[in-house]
C-alpha cells in the first residue's frame, strides 16, 4: 500500500501455463544446417568473417562484432560454410546470415581455451569474446553492462530469474540445473566489479527453484533470494530493480544510475560456465510448448537451428499452426515462416493453433482504467492512445509515452480488447518523427 495514490502498478495476473517446469533439459541432436543471423543483439550487426566453402569448428568466430555495442557470432557446429544469405528477422528487417552445413564430427576449434581473468578489464574482454548478450530476451551485449561509467557507485548485482512470461520454463530449468555455474558467475562478477550484494529475484510460482537456490547459497550472506509476487511483469528490468532494491531507475537512464547491474539468470550461468570451459555462446536452452506441440520439452539447441527442425524434434505439430512465437505470448514475436533460425536471445518457441491465435474483436474504450492501474510504469495507455490518434505529440511527451517498454500488460487487461501496446509503440515512433504517423 506504500504506492497508494502514487502509482498503483498492479501488473496483470497472466496465466502461468508452466507445464514444462518439471521437464529436465534434453539435448537436441545436430540439425541438418544452421543459419546464423549476424544481428542477434541490440546494436551494430556483426560482419561475416567466413566465405562459402570455409571450414569452421565448434566455437569458431563466424561474425565479428561491429562496434562497442555489438557482439561476435560463433558457430555451434563443425562443418563447411554453405553460403552467405539474407533472412527476414521477426521485426521485418532483412539481415545477413551465414549458413553452415555440419560435418557431424563436432570438432572443437583449437583456439578455444578457458579465458584468464585477473581483473575487471580481462573479465570484460572475456565476456566480449564469448559473444554473450542479454539472454532474458533483450539481447543487450553483456560486456557493455559490465563496463558502467559510474563503476564506483554500482553496488548490487541483480540476477533476473523472474520468468514472468507464461509457458516459458527455461530459466526455471537453468536455476535447477546450472546452479553451480550461476553461483560461480555471480561470485566472479561481484569480485571484479567490487559489488557488495547480489539479489536473485524469482517469481513465487517457482517454489522448487527458490528452495534449491537458497540451499545452494548456504551461509553466504551477500547473496539473497527474493521471492517476487506472481504479477506480470516482474521480470521487467525497472520493475525488478524497484521490487528487489526499492530504487527507481530514472528515465532516461540505466540501472547503473541507481547502482545496479541486472543480468538474466541464464546469462550469469553462461558467464560461470564460459570461465570454466572457454566455449562461446553457441547453444541455448529453450522451452518448446504450445497447444499443438506434440511433446513439449525443454531443449538445449544449437543457435542457428531452423525452428522447423526443433519442432520436429519435439514430435512435430498436432494441428496446422496459427501462430509460432519466438519467446512468450506477452512480448514474443511471431515467426513468418518455420525456416527461421533460433537466435541467441530466444528462450522459447511456442506453437499455437489457429483457434488459439484468434484474438477477440476490439470494442469501445469504457474508461475502466485497468490499463492505467495495471501499467508497471504508471503510464496511462488509454490517454496515450487517444493522444496518438489525435496526433498530439506534445501530450505524448507530457504522458511520457516513450517510457513504455511494450510489456503488453495494458493490452492484456483491457476488457474492450483494444491493442493498446502496439498503438503505444506507434506513438513512440510518432514522437521520434516529431508528429508524423
Amino acid at each position: 500500500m506504500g504506492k497508494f495514490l502514487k502509482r498503483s502498478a498492479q501488473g496483470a495476473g497472466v496465466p502461468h501455463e508452466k507445464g514444462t517446469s518439471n521437464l529436465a533439459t534434453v539435448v537436441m541432436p545436430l540439425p541438418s544446417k544452421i543459419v546464423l543471423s549476424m544481428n542477434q543483439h541490440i546494436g551494430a550487426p556483426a560482419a561475416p568473417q567466413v566465405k562459402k566453402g570455409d571450414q569452421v569448428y565448434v566455437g569458431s568466430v563466424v561474425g565479428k562484432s561491429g562496434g562497442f555495442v555489438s557482439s561476435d557470432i560463433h558457430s555451434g557446429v563443425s562443418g563447411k560454410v554453405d553460403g552467405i544469405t539474407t533472412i527476414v528477422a521477426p521485426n521485418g528487417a532483412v539481415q545477413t546470415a551465414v549458413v553452415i552445413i555440419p560435418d557431424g564430427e563436432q570438432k572443437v576449434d583449437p583456439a578455444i581455451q578457458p579465458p584468464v581473468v585477473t581483473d575487471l578489464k580481462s573479465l570484460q574482454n572475456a565476456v566480449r569474446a564469448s559473444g554473450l548478450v542479454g539472454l532474458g530476451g533483450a539481447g543487450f551485449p553483456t560486456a557493455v553492462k559490465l563496463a558502467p561509467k559510474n563503476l564506483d557507485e554500482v553496488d548490487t548485482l541483480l540476477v533476473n530469474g523472474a520468468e514472468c512470461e507464461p509457458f516459458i520454463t527455461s530459466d526455471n530449468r537453468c536455476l535447477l540445473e546450472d546452479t553451480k555455474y550461476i553461483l560461480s558467475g555471480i561470485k566472479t562478477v561481484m569480485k571484479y566489479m567490487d559489488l557488495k550484494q547480489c539479489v536473485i529475484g524469482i517469481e513465487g510460482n517457482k517454489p522448487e527453484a527458490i528452495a534449491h537456490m537458497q540451499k545452494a547459497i548456504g551461509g553466504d550472506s551477500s547473496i539473497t533470494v527474493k521471492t517476487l509476487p506472481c504479477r506480470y511483469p516482474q521480470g521487467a528490468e525497472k520493475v525488478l530493480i524497484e521490487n528487489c532494491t526499492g530504487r527507481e531507475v530514472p528515465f532516461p537512464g540505466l540501472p547503473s544510475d541507481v547502482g545496479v547491474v541486472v543480468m538474466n539468470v541464464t546469462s550469469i550461468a553462461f558467464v560461470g560456465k564460459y570461465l570454466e570451459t572457454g566455449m562461446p555462446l553457441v547453444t541455448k536452452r529453450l522451452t518448446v510448448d504450445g497447444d499443438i506441440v506434440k511433446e513439449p520439452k525443454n531443449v538445449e539447441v544449437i543457435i542457428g537451428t531452423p525452428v522447423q527442425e526443433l519442432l520436429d524434434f519435439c514430435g512435430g505439430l498436432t494441428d496446422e499452426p496459427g501462430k509460432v512465437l519466438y519467446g512468450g505470448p506477452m512480448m514474443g514475436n511471431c515467426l513468418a515462416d518455420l525456416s527461421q533460425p533460433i537466435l541467441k536471445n530466444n528462450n522459447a518457441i511456442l506453437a499455437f493453433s489457429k483457434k488459439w491465435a484468434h484474438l477477440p474483436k476490439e470494442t469501445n474504450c469504457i474508461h475502466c482504467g485497468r490499463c492505467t492501474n495495471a501499467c508497471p510504469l504508471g503510464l496511462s495507455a488509454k490517454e496515450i492512445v487517444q493522444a496518438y490518434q489525435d496526433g498530439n505529440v506534445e501530450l505524448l511527451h507530457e504522458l511520457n509515452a516513450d517510457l513504455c517498454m511494450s510489456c503488453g500488460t495494458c493490452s492484456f487487461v483491457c476488457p474492450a480488447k483494444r491493442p493498446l501496446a502496439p498503438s503505444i509503440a506507434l506513438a513512440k515512433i510518432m514522437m521520434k518523427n516529431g508528429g508524423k504517423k
Partner: protein
Amino acid sequence: MANKLIVTAAPHITDNDSTQKIMGRVCLALVPTLVASTIIFGLNSLILTVVTVAACVFFEWAWCKLRHKDIPIEDLSAVVTGMLLAFNMPATLPPWMAIVGAFIAIVIVKQLFGGLGYNFANPAIVARIAMAVGFASKMSSYPFGGGVDALASATPLAVSSELGASNYVTLLLGNHGGVLGETCAITLIIGGIYLIITKVISPIIPVTYLATVAVLSVLFGLDPIVQLLSGGLMLGAFFMATDYVTSPTTDKGKLIFGLILGLITMMIRKFGTMNEGVSFAILLGNLLVPYIDINTRQDRLGIAKKKKEAAAK
C-alpha cells in the same frame, strides 16, 4: 509457402474478462435490489424495470441501425443503464414516461455523444434529472404499501427530522416510500460489495463518498445513519458514481471525486430546497471528471524522481 502463419504484434493473449462480463456482473449486482423492490412495491416495480430495460436496448439498437453503426447491444451496457434508470423511478410512474426517460438516456446522453465510452455524464442520472423536471409530480409521488393504490408518502429524507433510531431497520430494509431501487439499503450494499469483490469497481469512490456524507452530517448536526441509509445515496455511491466512463481513472482521482460528491450531496441536503442531492452531485461530479483526470495522473516510474531531484538542485 504452403502454410501461412499469422503475424501480429504482441501481446498474443488477453484477459478472460470483457466489457460484456463486467456489465453482466453489474446487472447481477442489481438483481437483489430488484427483488426487494418487487416485494416492497409490488409487481409494478418489475414491470417498470422490464419496460425501461427493453426501451433502452431498443433505442440503442434502433439508433445504431439508423446510423449504420455496429450494433453493440451484446455489451449489455444498455441493460445496465435501463436497470439503473428504472431504479430511479417511483413504481407508480406510467410506462410511457419511462420510455421517454430511456430515450433521453440512450439517444440523447449516450449515442449523440458517440456511444459507449463517450458520454460526458451518466445517462441514467441525466435522464432521471430530466424526468424529475419534466414529470415533476409523477416522479415525486412515492408509493408505499404494495401497489399503485397505496397512498403516496414522503421519502424519509423529507421527514428525517421526525425519524428516530428505531427507524434504522426500516431504512435498511427499505419498506418505506421512495423510488424503486433506492429504498432497500441492505440489498444495495450487498450488490456493491459483490462488485468490489469481483473487482468490477474499486472501493475508493463509494467509501470516500459515504464517509464524507457521514462526517458532514455530524458537522451539520444531522443523524449520519439516516443520511447514509436514505435517499439515493447507496444506489448512487455504489452503482452510479462508479460508472467507468464518468468517473476518474486513478486512485487519487477517485478519492477526490468521492470527496466532491459527498460535499455537494450534503450541501444540497442541508442548504438546498430539494431533499435529494445525490443525482445533482453525481451530475456535477461527472462534469469535473476530465479536469480531475488530467490533474491526478499517476507518478511514472523514474520520472517523478528526476523532477524531484531537479527541484532539489
